[in-house]
């Protein structure tokens, strides 16, 4: 459409930062795209010296690790970005928190030591129903395999949700906590609900409040070692 304009001068990044953030309260209804826009605006507001990709339409270098779906709250979302000038992770965390709406909260900012993907192998989820689900969860926990169908653009895909779930617990009669291994693809909270209803069809189909409690690498004894 338009005449090509000269490429911006490319400045290589000097530092990579990793961020852990939370989606709380009403902000759980933000989609991942909504978060991305808010995040990139916050970076600009704060004046973070972002590294841009090279090329005709440069964009800030940010990479997001598998985001929680719209409607799910989270205490442990992760992303990574690069800058062209050294910055202090603590100061930037404070400034970004002031520039983001309440509920999208930066929990920690650290300098990257290892790639995020290697440190995020599983998620701990809390799922809350508006009624007692003890029986249904017991049935789900007792099953070895529960298959759920996912329809994607590429076609149908069957995933064994139960096989990827572990450390299933019930801190309250309405609440299940469980660890879901990241896989290709990773089951979403809604698919876990479908799986529970597959083994226990009497469970009413209502919105379930899902919260990601943590992400990390599973350790012996059922816990997760968080990257930071």
């Amino acid at each position, binding site marked *: 459409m338009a005449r090509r304009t000269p490429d911006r001068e490319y400045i290589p990044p000097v530092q990579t930062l990793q961020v852990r953030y939370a989606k709380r309260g009403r902000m759980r209804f933000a989609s991942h795209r909504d978060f991305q826009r808010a995040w990139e605006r916050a970076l*600009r507001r704060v004046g973070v010296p972002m590294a841009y990709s090279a090329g005709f339409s440069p964009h800030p270098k940010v990479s997001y690790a598998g985001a929680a779906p719209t409607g799910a709250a989270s205490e442990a979302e992760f992303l990574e970005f690069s800058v062209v000038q050294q910055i202090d992770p603590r100061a930037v965390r404070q400034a970004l928190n002031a520039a983001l709406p309440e509920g999208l909260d930066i929990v920690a900012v650290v300098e990257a030591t290892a790639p995020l993907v290697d440190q995020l192998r599983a998620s701990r989820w809390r799922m809350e129903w508006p009624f007692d689900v003890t029986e249904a969860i017991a049935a789900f926990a007792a099953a070895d395999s529960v298959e759920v169908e996912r329809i994607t653009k590429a076609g149908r895909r069957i995933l064994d949700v139960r096989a990827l779930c572990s450390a299933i617990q019930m801190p309250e009669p309405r609440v299940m906590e469980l660890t879901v291994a990241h896989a290709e693809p990773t089951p979403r909270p809604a698919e876990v609900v479908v799986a529970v209803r597959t083994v226990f069809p009497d469970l009413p189909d209502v919105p379930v409040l899902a919260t990601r409690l943590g992400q990390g690498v599973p350790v012996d004894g059922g816990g997760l070692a968080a990257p930071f």
Partner: protein
Amino acid sequence: MGVSYPGVVQSVYPALERILPLVRKPIQYVGGELNASVKPWESVPVRWALMYPDAYEVGLPNQGLQILYEVLNERDDVLAERTYSVWPDMEALMREHGVPQFTVDAHRPVSAFDVLGVSFATELGYTNLLTALDLAGIPLHADERTDEHPLVIAGGHAAFNPEPIADFIDAAVIGDGEQAVLRLSDIIRDAKAAGTASRGELLDAIAASGVAYVPAKYEVSYLPDGRIRRVAPVDASTPWRVAKHTVSDLDEWPYPKQPIVPLAETVHERASVEIFRGCTRGCRFCQAGMITRPVRERSKTTIADMVQTSLSATGFEEVGLLSLSSADHSDIAALTKGLADRYEGSNTGLSLPSTRVDAFNIDLANELARNGRRSGLTFAPEGGSERIRKVINKMVTEEDLIRTVAAAYAAGWRQVKLYFMCGLPTETDEDVLQIARMAKEVIRTGREVSGRKDIRCTVSIGGFVPKPHTPFQWAAQLGWQQTDARLALLREEIRSDRELGRAIGFRYHDGRPGIVEGLLARGDRRVGPVIEAVWRDGGRFDGWSEYFDFDRWMSCAEAVGVDVDWYTTREREENEVLPWDHLDSGLDKEWLWQDWQDALDEVEVEDCRWSPCFDCGVCDQMGTEIQVGPTDGVILPIVQVTS
């Protein structure tokens, strides 16, 4: 009013939260945006709910509403929250779960506020007003409301003829809202303090003050042939006419200072700074130009400050320099250059909506493109033939247009958009077919000067709707069948040339929505029942083609006995009382009539910014004056402080 609302007003969020997982794009209903404001309910005596009667994605960027929100919230004795139209999926769930219309800021029920202020940019938002009232539990009809209910006050351009919604609103503010909402707040605060805040007392006080038009205080009588006999106040304290508000020094009102930054995606992902208000080019079809006179410019230093304030308050990547015709700002060259210099290399984009057909517009676009972003170029000749452009007073010659567009291609643009209207007064098929010839000439010349074969132009055309307070307020609207037939002819004419036709895109809007818009724009109080019938039959979101239902409008009009043709395709005579005559836009009716006669005679009128005053009436009537001319001061670079 809110005074009698018992106890603390509860947030509806807990109930809302249960249905949010079930709707599309729930984020639009939760508020919590950066720069949004929530004040404690009990901390102020006057509470406004401000509504834009369309979806959040359209309503949030609306400048008018954001300005009023901020102006009101800056006051210690007032709070303002926002509410938008909910989509039908949400509406159904709200009804099922008993969730009332709520504000997005603190999720308070709209019915608990003192005022529900609704800004109508277009008449197609009327059915959405009814949805909101009904969901709020506010009776649709003003005369059924009690002291428990908010005052429903309309504003925005469509409020210059609020007669079709006269039954549903308590008052209408005409013109600029900034000072009007503050005066209304004073009236309400004082009345509450004095214990005279019953609905009747408040409306009396508002009507008598002239700050807003209170339809219930006027009686309309009709002639046997259906025309209006007269519109008269029902008592001596109510003025015969209500005048529009005009903010005279925009530098004193640099709002919004803290634009709201949405989480949801909206139609304009940018900050906006209004560089001037009003337009005196005098295009005869243009209601916006006529009703916002005179031209009042902001100085370039105020504009530059506002640009920087809104960028740092929001983190937006782009700022739009808004107005009705931005290239017309008298200091625009210095302004764009100053801003382009300041933001060079900063990833900040500047855009300037302007459709002026001249080379200067291209220079400006070039200046703004320096930063690596290029917005599209759009020109609006509006009429296809030289003759029809004289009728509408769009002073562009064919030569101007060809030369300008050629210059754009020569400067490197490969695509331009051309805007036109169809159905203008006195228009013939020939006038519209001329558009095709012009577009082909544009491509031919463009290929020549640029030496490229891949240049394109898009012809965008929509049906003309005559609007109140314009010289065309007397004109017959073209029927939708004729509009569609003419558009079909035009498309044929473009396509008939295989070679050039391929380089010309054709975008058009069919004629039917225009007829409904025309009915609502020039309707009187008898049109209200049509709106209500359409709404009861399920009419919602009429501005959206996927919801708009022409047949429903026509059958409802018939059912309530309204002759749509009488309101739309009928030409009015000089002495006919028009439904909006008692609302004073400042324009002299005799001057408008003369301008209408000049239009029919194909006589043009100059712009009063660069030629002598032609006595349209506005400045005289309103005690205002045009405020244009370059100002001193330079746009300084922003010094980036990095820690």
